[in-house]
């Protein structure tokens, strides 16, 4: 079945099945890219939706922009604490339930976040941008011309892994480990990366040992501006228990890796799906300094959701949520809300409110690295357009392969050809 037929079939199913049977967490909806009609129906008919039975147990889905904002802005009612279940829909994922600052409530969250956030402060980004540009240029210059290759490993993974190794000051020749641990952290068991939770934990223990070694090196050396040295020397974090350190490392690996990587791939796909926008970008590359990059991030929505757990009985858009229940904020739905974004399925590089997308979250857990992610995507396209300035020169050849995952929305491959 081609993509169009598949989507039409999904729309028929989404609107004919009993409402209560809709399960937005079904990972095949992301793999086939057929989630949109299910979320459209939920936004219209049942914006706070209960799924009684899923791969991930019972949970509430919040599908509208304003309701998600309400959940984000009330962390005392909707907790991120890993001891209650953390930030992703999967409860049993040992990696995602480790203590890490994204999965903490205030005040501890604020304290630990503030230790790492200076590395992505504007002054630091300005310093790093030359290096990012150089690496991007080298990567693009080594790509094959006029033949089909896979954009995902050659560009997206390549660039984000190098950046991450730089942020951690991680041994550069072993940097592919970072990508591997990122995949291990977020994969669903049985989808090609890991077979079971035990397997996941065994691999992550190795990651923990590796990073413990780096910690021990850094803690005994002069402080340096890399993330590990910062954690090892800060008064606020230097006594962190090992599992908390590992948790924070994994958060930074996934946060610095998956999301940017998949937006880089998504931007190529989106421009190919919307050739008028590709033309617009080539005619006006300054769009990269204003709304084009946030629009790529909205269009891709590299994390489908974030999860919270209700700390007490509360009401949400007329529905009664009980203490302890799982509440999932579907960014992939709110970023496609027609009342918020005009013709939301389409890419519009000059979309006026593109920055209001929810892909980075809002409130106190808003993505700490969001400006670094944007910078990397912006530089990538600036360098692409310098080399290949014509619309369609980066041409998608055939269908991408998407991850079977309800959390990370991404690509395992994207065949392209550079026409030059």
């Amino acid at each position, binding site marked *: 079945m081609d993509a169009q037929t598949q989507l039409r079939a999904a729309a028929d199913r989404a609107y004919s099945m009993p409402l209560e049977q809709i399960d937005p967490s079904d990972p095949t909806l992301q793999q086939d890219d057929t989630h949109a009609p299910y979320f459209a129906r939920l936004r219209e008919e049942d914006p706070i939706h209960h799924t009684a039975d899923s791969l991930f147990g019972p949970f509430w889905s919040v599908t509208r922009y304003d309701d998600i904002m309400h959940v984000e802005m009330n962390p005392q009612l909707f907790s991120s604490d890993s001891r209650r279940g953390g930030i992703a829909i999967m409860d049993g994922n040992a990696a995602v339930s480790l203590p890490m600052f994204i999965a903490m409530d205030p005040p501890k969250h604020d304290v630990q976040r503030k230790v790492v956030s*200076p590395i992505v402060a*504007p002054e630091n*980004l300005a310093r790093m941008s030359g290096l990012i540009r150089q690496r991007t240029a080298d990567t693009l210059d080594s790509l094959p011309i006029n033949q089909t290759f896979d954009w995902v490993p050659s560009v997206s993974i390549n660039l984000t892994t190098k950046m991450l190794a730089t942020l951690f000051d991680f041994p550069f020749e072993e940097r592919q480990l970072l990508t591997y641990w990122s995949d291990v952290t977020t994969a669903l068991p049985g989808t090609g990366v890991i077979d079971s939770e035990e397997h996941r934990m065994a691999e992550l223990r190795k990651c923990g040992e590796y990073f413990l070694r780096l910690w021990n090196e850094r803690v005994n050396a002069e402080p340096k501006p890399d993330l590990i040295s910062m954690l090892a020397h800060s008064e606020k974090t230097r006594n962190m228990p090992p599992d908390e350190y590992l948790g924070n490392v994994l958060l930074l690996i996934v946060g610095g890796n998956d999301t940017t990587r998949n937006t880089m791939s998504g931007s190529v796909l989106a421009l190919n799906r919307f050739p008028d926008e590709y033309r617009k970008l080539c005619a006006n590359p300054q769009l990269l300094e204003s709304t084009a990059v946030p629009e790529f991030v909205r269009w891709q929505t590299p994390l489908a959701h974030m999860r919270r757990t209700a700390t007490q009985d509360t009401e949400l858009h007329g529905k009664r949520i009980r203490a302890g229940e799982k509440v999932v904020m579907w960014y992939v739905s709110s970023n496609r809300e027609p009342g918020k974004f005009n013709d939301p399925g389409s890419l519009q590089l000059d979309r006026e*409110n593109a920055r209001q997308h929810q892909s980075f979250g809002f*409130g106190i857990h808003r993505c700490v690295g*969001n*400006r670094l992610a944007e910078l990397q995507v912006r530089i990538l396209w600036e360098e692409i357009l310098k080399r290949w300035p014509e619309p369609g020169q980066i041409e998608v050849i055939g269908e991408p392969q998407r991850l079977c995952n309800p959390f990370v929305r991404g690509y395992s491959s994207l065949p392209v050809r550079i026409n030059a």
Partner: protein
Amino acid sequence: MKITYIDYNGTQRDVEVEAGTNLRDAALNNAIPGIDGDCGGECACATCHVRVDPAWLPRLPTMGDQEKMMLEMMDDRDERSRLGCQIHLSPELDGLVVHTPMGQH
């Protein structure tokens, strides 16, 4: 009414704005650098962070809980920090002076 934005380089920009707007919208409408305002003014992103000239601080509207919560998580805030979208520009604030950062994050 007049608002003065001073950027991280010390460059001063005086802009004429309508009373009733807020410090974020006034900045965006006048292409003031260093203010992003991603959330659209919902007090949910902290990318409209400004530092208020000390002389003006006591005359500003008091901080709400949500603004306090957002400022609390920022590594670079100080006692002069406010979120621009929460500063409603009433006529008494004519002449207000604020400092904008190099960029938001």
